[in-house]
């Protein structure tokens, strides 16, 4: 339970892989009071309801199921001396690290010298995708399906259709298999699976048709899902199904940031950060999937560790202060985002958010990815990628006296 006004060194909002890794690492850096605020009844984040493999290779050097992996992360953070407070919701982000929180006792304030935001992601809902039809029961995001299957041992439907083919669709398939649910089809709007091999392979193994270049137009049913309408290259068709699993298109859980007046990058949907993971208010840092949508748990964990190093340096007064340079401008329609948005003016020397610039595409593209300042190319790499693929570039430093950085795709 929180005291009405509590002061800590670092408050971490969100107890998933990134937040827990940061908590552990901050304690190892000798930071005294590290408090993780987790709104669920248990910490661990999304892996807590992914009752399948593979988790933990990077962190524990062994293959674990999601819940076991989440439990290990929690134990490790607690053993390191971090305090994890569950059932506690952060309701507001104030200036100078002042957090409004609520729990069963009502409201309280936590003030921290630095705050790490690690609130993760959620899938894009049926509503946000503007899928038509009615609103019967049995339309679920993967996150909800996993909760019902692994936490509640429920079987919400027998013959659903799966929308999307990112890696999370693989997770949805495994969850269905665990519960004895037999999907009728996987629907993908693009011309092939987004997660190239695992989704089609597992679908084929399970005998589930994979329908590419097909869009879900409408869901029908009064009380339960009865059927769906599809539009594809070969015209329109209908399928019988008793459920719809709406997967992927993860988006950062960033509403608190918007309400708190922290700058958001419309391209990622997450905060605008510099090379140390700092936000527009330098008391705030971010790590994990909040930064850019979905990456693996292991990737988020590594980001949490690096954010901890940056925060420890910040608490020692070792981080450069001063004006943030202008964010990278995206100057090609195929570019979805580049993060961190604010490039450092001096090398981050291992304390940074990540040693790379992380880039994603909105549409497939090939050529040369070029980062410009004025008419000078300061970094480049070859490009032959598809949406949702991870694209990295060594994090460049920029010249504060040159024009703002600009990312383009040039013919190779």
């Amino acid at each position: 339970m929180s005291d009405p006004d509590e002061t800590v060194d670092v408050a971490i909002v969100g107890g998933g892989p990134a937040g827990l890794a940061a908590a552990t690492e901050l304690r190892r850096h000798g930071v005294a009071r590290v408090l993780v605020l987790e709104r669920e009844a248990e910490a661990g984040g999304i892996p807590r309801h992914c009752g399948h493999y593979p988790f933990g290779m990077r962190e524990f050097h062994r293959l674990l199921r999601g819940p076991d992996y989440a439990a290990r992360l929690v134990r490790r953070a607690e053993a390191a001396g971090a305090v994890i407070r569950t059932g506690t919701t952060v309701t507001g982000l104030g200036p100078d690290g002042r957090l409004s929180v609520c729990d069963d006792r009502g409201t309280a304030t936590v003030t921290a010298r630095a705050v790490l935001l690690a609130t993760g992601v959620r899938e894009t809902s049926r509503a946000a995708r503007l899928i038509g039809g009615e609103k019967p029961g049995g339309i679920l995001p993967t996150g909800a399906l996993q909760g019902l299957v692994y936490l509640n041992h429920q079987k919400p439907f027998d013959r659903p259709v799966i929308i999307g083919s990112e890696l999370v669709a693989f997770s949805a398939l495994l969850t269905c298999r665990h519960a004895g649910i037999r999907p009728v089809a996987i629907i993908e709007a693009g011309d092939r699976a987004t997660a190239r091999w695992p989704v089609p392979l597992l679908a084929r193994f399970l005998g589930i048709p994979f329908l590419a270049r097909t869009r879900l137009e409408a869901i029908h049913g009064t009380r339960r899902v009865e059927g769906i309408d599809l539009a594809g290259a070969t015209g329109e068709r209908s399928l019988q199904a008793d459920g719809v699993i709406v997967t992927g298109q993860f988006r950062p859980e960033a509403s608190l940031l918007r309400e708190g007046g922290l700058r958001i990058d419309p391209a990622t949907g997450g905060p605008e950060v510099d090379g140390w993971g700092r936000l527009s208010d330098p008391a705030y840092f971010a790590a994990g999937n909040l930064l850019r949508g979905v990456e693996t748990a292991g990737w988020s964990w590594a980001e949490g560790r690096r954010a901890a190093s940056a925060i420890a340096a910040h608490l020692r007064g070792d981080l450069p202060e001063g004006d943030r340079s202008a964010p990278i401008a995206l100057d090609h329609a195929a570019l979805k985002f580049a993060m961190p948005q604010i490039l450092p003016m001096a090398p981050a020397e291992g304390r940074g958010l990540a040693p790379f610039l992380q880039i994603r595409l909105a549409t497939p593209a090939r050529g040369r990815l070029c980062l410009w300042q004025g008419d000078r190319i300061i970094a480049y790499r070859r490009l032959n990628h598809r949406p949702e693929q991870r694209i990295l570039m060594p994090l460049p430093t920029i010249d504060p006296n040159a024009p703002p950085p600009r990312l383009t795709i040039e013919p190779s």
Partner: protein
Amino acid sequence: MAGARTYDVAVIGGGVVGCALARRFTLDGARVVLLEKAADVLDGASKGNSAILHTGFDAPEGSLELQCIREGYAEYLDIHARLNLPLIRSGAMVLAWTPEELAQLPDLIAQAHLNGITDVESLTAADILRQEPALAANVLGGFRIPGESLIDPWSAAHAYLRQALDNGAMLIRQAEVLGGRRVGDLWEMETSAGTVHAALVINAAGLWGDEVDRRMTGESWFAIKPRKGQFVVYDKPAAALAGHILLPVPNKITKGVVVCRTAFGNLLVGPTAEEQEDRIHATMDRAALEALRKRGEEILPALRDHEITAIYAGLRPATEEKEYRIRADRAEGYITVGGIRSTGLSAALGIAAHVARLAGRADQPLAGPVWPRMPALSDEAQRDWRAPRNGGVICHCERVTRREIEAALSGPMAAGSMGGLKRRTRVTMGRCQGFYCSAELARLTEGRLPEPMLAGNAHDE
């Protein structure tokens, strides 16, 4: 259970109008039963409204609709604080985007004056943009109606019914009226929940108004022509983009696409107006939703960077005529309240008062009736998550607590369906649409709703 009792008044239909009628007749001293065919109230036309309390500035002059809106508006202002119902005095602006629309403004202002709304105020484009800086700069002019306000689309009806129940009325759900006949001074009604006797029957069956007339009296003097309205709802940060309710210049059929905040701090764009035969399915379609999004972005360009959290469609119980279809047969003890279109939420209390006068009963009004206080869902300052022993937050997007959900699942008006639970608490109606809280909610509601959660998962907003 139902068959054993005889009532003074039976109201057919638990929409906002039926709930207001149950309250009015109960407070006037009658023994009232409300019959609802669905598992919960507000399951028909009333579940998908735009949550605006209208002044009646654009209603047809001299119409019954105008009279009921004016009377209903005044009574809402009078009682909302006692029932703890919200009233956000945002005001509205009617905006002209074309020279043709601009030319219509003087007539609309004159109409408002004729309707008794004398505080409307003509605005230049510069005035408008000063007050609404997020608005597209190509607005040409408009006028302001200070009295137009935002309310909760459901808590008003819930409060009316709750006050009726707390003062002795009876609610029977899953009670579809199958037929009826007049026996002496009483109606004998066959319902799917048994026989009900009542001296006066009021048909407030909304989308089924003509059908219920036929079942009760063998004929109907009007025909319901359902008119569908689709809406998109934006996430809370978008609400900062519009202070006023932003109305277009209306045409003969519809008020047109409105952009406004909601009482819950979201931003709403809609409705469409589409005639259809089907009275059950309010089917959304991608093209219409995309058109609404596009229209929203034309009005508020910054909406481009905001997220849609919900989509929904409702059916208005329109008829062949614009005017309300209210007719009383006092000798037969039968009143039809039909054709209450999109203004039903604003007019409900006025309709109830009008119908009570038509009924001309001589009951003894209750002395010192009970005034229930509704949970404050739309006032963040009053929300349960701020209070001690709330049980923790279950729905994170809308910050709904375990205690709020428990309260909505118990008592005389316990939620009868998942949709009803949502309307009472807002669970799962936020941006994640159940991504985070479905499992916990399924555990909490297990065995406590007639239909398990996943079977009744109708998103009403």
